[in-house]
């Protein structure tokens, strides 16, 4: 201890001595010393880094619900079918499927010659093992919600699997696409928790390391069954601070960033090494209007509000220009989307509707959303716009947990205290983008139909659409449904995001799909 | 008259404060001879401590010696550069202070603090310094010096601390020792021991001592010559016998009268009325005039000069001047 103190005093003495005797150089040395130690370890590997805005929560592909963990697991795992960039489905670990006429039996033909990273082969048995794991009620895995209609799975032969449903379910293939296939041998070996940190799949990359909260590194799978990436390793790095993420791209510490903060596009515009990539999304941005509340019970008020919002200004101010107006309750990237006549920005019309509804002088209300800057910006914008038709909107940012508590604690519409909720929703298929938000059975606390939209006709169409296996008939049902919802205006229809990512100009083969998933199967770099 | 070891000539020390410039010591001259103890007496605030600090140029930042000379065997300390004066400090002139407890560094062992001196001035190495320090501690009359060496100051009593201070001061064989109220903070019995020690050191080492005190008893017991200071000026200087027998200055008289004497009935102890004036509120004439029972009109207007009397004495008083003039 004494020695420590002595050493310490010596250091301080020398510093004061230097400072006393020579007052020109005080600081500055430290910096150069530190950079000297910063010589990167020579590494033969070609690595690419993707900086993302959140942390990877888990690497168990069956027990995640966030997009980013989905992207991360997608580097190592694959499913029977998967989405292409245009949101259509293509066979991956399956080669095809049949569906029985009653829509209750699906037969999947599994791709031959594919092996897991641990060397075990992919076959029908392995897929069954995975489906059974996901369906297990005891395990309560997050993906189970996608297989609720599955009653049983049967192995027909080595590469054929039969899946039986309890009721016809039109988006079944979309749900199957969400189930990634894990090596059964690895699951046996590591267990349900151990698999989180020891992923073994069939994907283009093999797991290398993951520090929860920090980066995940994967290495190119040499034995990938199709053409894979042209790099050695790929790193996912969570960088929550927007400015920091861009700085990484500017300095070359990152090869690809997602999301590219919309506000910052101008900042990188002049940089030749950086390309900003725009893409459509499945994300709808809107505001629930709680129809069980007196003020929003009149359709004219809800329409007036929609007329009073300048959607172009919304895109410009809130999304820095990177949003397109919503033309239905689902974004145009969702199959069966039909564009509806626009609620154009028309204050006169809005005021007239308000007056007709008995609110010539408007009313007071409040809007809720999480307390991050982006959501707060959206809320403020709505508040500013509605003030022009006399509606005084108090902006109430809430911490996310509190917000969900405040919304779901209401057992009945009468108990609900929410007035407006500024929110976004993203789904892969029409049913996913509709049922939970508009079916009368899905009002809180069951699900987020926070508009308390209860229209029997809409309920009927939602149910019919879900079991209609014929695409044409389905399209008709959904076209009618969209028109009804649009005219009832249970939401303020604001916009659909344009997804922004940015890459170094050397980066190739990394894409963001409309759901926000990062696809790096073909990653390559010329750096 | 013995050889002048340390001589102070016309010393003037000023302080720069937020109330302006204050003269703490004005035109002070005296000397200390070999094997001599010179007393410097006065109330608190009379400038005696400032005088002693001025000698070694140890004044706090705001203090400044604006005139005079301090000669050690003829060399002017005030003209030396910083390095040379440091060689004098603790070397040829050592100093001990009023409050021994606070004058030792609380976080350093006693031995270390003594050894520091000899290592610096006599260039001793560690073991030489250690041996010498133990020797010095023994000489100031502390048993088990080895044990004391390893103690921290707070583990010592007041008397022991002052002995250590003396040991430290004496460890480099100084020619002059300046002792600023060395016994004030100590118990009476300890006081006597410390004084005894100083007398003994004076004899053995043939040093000159400048003893600063407000205690006339101490002066009477130890000093050869005495100077009385008031408001930064020397008001009277005499050998110790003459001073006590026949004080000239009214202030000196007052001081001597206010010392309680055993045997006399002291129902009412005489004291000097009033207080030492603030340095920033100095009266114009004689600084003592406001408190002086014999003050005349002249005393309020004109400051008296220090006058030689009987060859060996000096006094700063209009009365004395007049008398001596009459005598002449």
């Amino acid at each position: 201890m004494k020695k420590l103190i002595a050493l310490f005093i010596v250091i301080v003495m020398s510093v004061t001595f230097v400072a006393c005797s020579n007052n020109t150089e005080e600081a500055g040395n430290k910096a150069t010393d530190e950079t000297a130690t910063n010589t990167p370890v020579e590494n033969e590997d070609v690595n690419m880094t993707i900086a993302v805005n959140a942390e990877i929560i888990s690497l168990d592909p069956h027990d995640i619900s966030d997009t980013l963990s989905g992207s991360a697991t997608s580097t190592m795992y694959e499913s029977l079918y998967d989405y292409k960039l245009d949101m259509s489905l293509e066979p991956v670990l399956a080669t095809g499927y049949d569906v029985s006429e009653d829509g209750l039996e699906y037969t999947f033909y599994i791709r031959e010659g594919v092996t897991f990273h641990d060397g075990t082969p992919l076959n029908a048995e392995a897929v069954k093992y995975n489906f059974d794991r996901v369906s297990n009620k005891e395990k309560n895995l997050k993906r189970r919600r996608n297989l609720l209609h599955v009653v049983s799975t049967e192995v027909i032969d080595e590469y054929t699997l039969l899946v039986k449903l309890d009721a016809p379910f039109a988006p079944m293939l979309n749900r199957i696409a969400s189930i990634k296939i894990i090596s059964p041998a690895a699951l046996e070996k590591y267990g349900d928790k151990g698999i989180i940190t020891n992923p073994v799949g069939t994907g283009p990359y093999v797991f290398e390391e993951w520090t929860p909260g920090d980066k995940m590194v994967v290495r190119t799978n040499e034995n990938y069954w199709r053409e894979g990436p042209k790099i050695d390793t790929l790193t996912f790095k969570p960088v929550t601070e927007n400015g920091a993420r861009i700085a990484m791209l500017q300095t070359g510490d990152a090869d690809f960033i997602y999301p590219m903060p919309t506000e910052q596009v101008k900042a990188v515009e002049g940089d030749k090494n950086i390309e900003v990539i725009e893409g459509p999304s499945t994300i709808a941005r809107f505001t629930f209007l709680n129809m069980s509340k007196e003020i929003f019970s009149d359709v004219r008020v809800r329409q007036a509000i929609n007329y009073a919002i300048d959607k172009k200004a919304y895109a410009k101010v809130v999304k820095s220009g990177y949003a397109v107006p919503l033309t239905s309750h689902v974004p145009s990237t969702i199959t069966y989307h039909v564009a509806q006549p626009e609620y154009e920005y028309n204050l006169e019309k809005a005021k007239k509707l308000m007056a007709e509804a008995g609110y010539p002088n408007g009313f007071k209300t409040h809007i809720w959303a999480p307390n991050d800057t982006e959501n707060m910006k959206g809320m403020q914008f709505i508040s500013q716009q509605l003030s022009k038709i006399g509606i005084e909107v108090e902006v109430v940012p809430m911490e996310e947990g509190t917000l969900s508590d405040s919304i779901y604690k209401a057992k009945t519409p009468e108990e609900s205290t929410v007035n407006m909720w500024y929110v976004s929703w993203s789904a892969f298929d029409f049913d996913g983008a509709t049922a939970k938000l508009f079916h009368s059975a899905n009002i809180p606390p069951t699900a987020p139909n926070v508009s308390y939209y209860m229209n029997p006709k809409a309920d009927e169409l939602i149910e019919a659409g879900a079991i209609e296996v014929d695409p044409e008939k389905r399209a008709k049902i959904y076209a009618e449904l969209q028109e009804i919802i649009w005219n009832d205006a249970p939401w303020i229809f604001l916009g659909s995001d344009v997804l922004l990512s940015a890459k170094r100009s050397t980066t190739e083969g990394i894409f963001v799909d409309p759901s926000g998933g990062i696809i790096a199967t073909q990653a390559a770099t010329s750096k | 008259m013995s050889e002048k070891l340390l001589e102070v000539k016309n010393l003037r020390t000023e302080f720069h404060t937020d109330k302006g410039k204050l003269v703490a010591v004005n035109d002070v001259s005296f000397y200390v001879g070999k094997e001599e103890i010179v007393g410097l007496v006065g109330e608190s605030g009379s400038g005696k401590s400032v005088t002693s600090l001025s000698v070694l140029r140890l004044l706090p930042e705001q203090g400044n010696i604006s005139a005079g000379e301090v000669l050690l065997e003829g060399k002017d300390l005030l003209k030396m550069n910083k390095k040379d004066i440091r060689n004098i400090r603790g070397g040829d002139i050592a100093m001990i202070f009023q409050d021994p407890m606070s004058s030792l560094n609380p976080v350093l062992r006693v031995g270390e603090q003594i050894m520091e001196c000899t290592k610096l001035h006599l260039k001793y190495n560690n073991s030489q310094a250690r041996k010498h320090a133990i020797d010095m501690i023994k000489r100031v009359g502390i048993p088990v010096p080895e044990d004391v060496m390893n103690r921290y100051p707070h583990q010592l009593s007041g008397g022991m601390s002052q002995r250590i201070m003396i040991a430290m001061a004496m460890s480099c064989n100084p020619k002059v020792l300046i002792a600023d109220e060395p016994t004030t903070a100590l118990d009476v019995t300890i006081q006597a021991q410390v004084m005894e020690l100083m007398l003994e050191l004076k004899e053995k080492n043939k040093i000159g001592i400048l003893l600063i005190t407000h205690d006339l008893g101490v002066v009477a017991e130890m000093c050869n010559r005495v100077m009385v200071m008031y408001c930064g000026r020397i008001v009277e200087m005499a050998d110790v016998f003459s001073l006590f027998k026949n004080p000239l200055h009214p202030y000196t008289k007052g001081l001597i009268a206010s010392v309680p004497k055993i045997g006399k009935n002291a129902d009412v102890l005489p004291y000097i009325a009033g207080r030492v004036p603030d340095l920033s509120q100095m009266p114009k004439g004689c600084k003592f005039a406001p408190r002086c029972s014999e003050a005349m009109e002249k005393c309020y207007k004109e400051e008296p000069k220090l006058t030689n009397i009987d060859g060996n004495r000096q006094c700063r008083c209009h009365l004395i001047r007049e008398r001596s003039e009459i005598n002449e």
Partner: protein
Amino acid sequence: MEEVKMQEAKYEDFKIENPMKEFARKFLKKKSAVVSLGFIFFLVILAIFQPAPYDIDETDYDNILSEPNSEHLFGTDEYGRDVLSRIITGTRLSLSVAVTAVTIGAFLGSILGIIAGYYGGLLESLIMRFCDILFSFPGLLLAIGIVAIIGPGLTNVVIAISIYGIPTFTRVIRSSTLSIKELLYIEASRSIGVSDTRLLVKHIFPGTLPALIVTYTMRMGTAIISAASLSFLGFGASPTNPDWGAMLSTGRDYIGVAPHMLLYPGLMIFFTVLAFNLLGDGLRDTLDPKLD
């Protein structure tokens, strides 16, 4: 000079300076403190009169994020609102958040501190343990925790900052009370039979004032920074309010694009906090309370 001063003290009856005058004389010598006081005074003027050139809620979607120019000296924000106007108007909010929070903390903390210092015993142990526990949750984390429980928003920020200011005041006031209690005159007046309450109000409380004033000033800076930090972490003021911290938190999204949104509110916070700290330093040197 110190020795001389010490000795002087015994002879002070030549002239006793009026304490206010003496305070003023000493304080005026602290140039940085005087400048700071001037700046704070300026802020208070801004807060009261709010001489904002533009309506702070006036949006201009065609003129968003424009750089500082002759029309908008500090540029415009993401809705095209005038940044300078929002900063000026925000003065009231930022100052009142800090003042309220620190006042509540000071009030509760002082009461606890005086009680602990004066009565001692079990009460003191209880109060001081309470403070230890509050202190064992480091700094801002306590405020974050409190806001996490009671939700974000200005009122709650005020509550959180008040609570986490309490132990600081309790400790300072307690030790100040203790040292005053030791003073003879308290002993004397107690022996005459003055009631405890009177003693506390008439003698002890005024004695703790210097420590209180200095700590209060210093805490103002801490409170402003804490409020801004809470806003930065998303626990703070509503974005509709022109709160400096909230502006900063929005502004950081535009770093690189519209640095003025980050720079000016940041500088404003910095200068304000600096002013309070320098003023606190000056007051401490002048009032010379015993702080531990």
